[in-house]
């Protein structure tokens, strides 16, 4: 079976989008289940719960950026290259790397947000700022995964 390098590159893009979708849905579910428990005892914290529970959603957009870049820029570059020499497999590897970054950081950002939500009614909502700060640390990993994937594709001369 001969797989076209552009098809392998597109597979990399879709794997990265799949990782982002898994990370954000899992993270939002972890934060959301803590949010339901919190809202049942203190319904006026709903605004804070919505803010904290929606933080892991950004993974979807990061991974969509990677997929658009691969389909729009990298795949045409690969199909016009004289001899791709396995560059499609390298792009697939970049997609797997981005997908690990998005999935793991999304799931674990959800647990940080869930801890923040659990303390909302005890602190009258004052924990919101601090828990967003600590959740942004985990967000940074996803942003770095996005940036480093783009830098690596650039160094391979595919963008």
């Amino acid at each position, binding site marked *: 079976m001969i797989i076209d390098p552009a098809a*392998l590159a597109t597979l990399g893009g879709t794997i990265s989008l799949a990782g982002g979708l898994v990370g954000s849905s899992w993270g939002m579910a972890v934060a959301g289940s803590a949010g339901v428990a919190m809202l049942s005892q203190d319904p006026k914290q709903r605004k804070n719960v919505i803010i904290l529970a929606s933080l892991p959603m950004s993974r979807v957009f990061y991974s969509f950026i990677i997929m658009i870049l691969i389909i729009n820029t990298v795949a045409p570059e690969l199909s016009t290259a004289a001899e791709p020499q396995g560059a499609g*497999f*390298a792009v697939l*590897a970049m997609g797997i*790397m981005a997908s690990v970054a998005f999935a*793991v950081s999304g799931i674990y*950002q959800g*647990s940080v947000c869930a801890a923040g939500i659990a303390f909302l009614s005890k602190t009258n909502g004052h924990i919101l700022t601090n828990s967003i700060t600590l959740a942004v640390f985990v967000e940074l990993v996803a942003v770095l995964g996005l940036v480093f994937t783009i830098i*690596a594709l650039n160094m391979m001369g595919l963008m």
Partner: protein
Amino acid sequence: MNISAESLAIFGGAIALAGGLAGAAIGMAMAGYSGVAILAEEPKHMKSVIILAALPMSRVFYGFIILVFILTTVLPRITAMPDPGGNGFAVAACGVISAAAFSFSGIHQGAVCSAGIASLIKTRGRILTNSIMLAVFVELIAVLGLVFTIMSLSLLGLM
């Protein structure tokens, strides 16, 4: 699908960065959710919590160093070889070594930092220095993983 030695080498670099990203995300999240619990009790420990929760982030940069080394130094050497043989697979194996080092040390450094954060109130912040010292022991594993990967790449004659 024809996997060339170059694309296997790039796969190794991508695995190394993926391990670093996963370790950093899980470690920072573990420190982050005990940080949220401490800040709910005592918001003035914010500075110490941020210092301790940011320690596992270095894995991302170590992983990126490996990826950049492979893309800029190892790849031209492999391309210049008349018959690369199994060199690409060897570089992928080196990437797996460093991915294991970065992810395990990141996750478990997060556990050490989380223990330090949990004792911040009891010791009125004085545990910070000691817990940074104990976290640096785990950091050492990541640094040794980076150094030994570079050493083995240069023993393979690829740097």
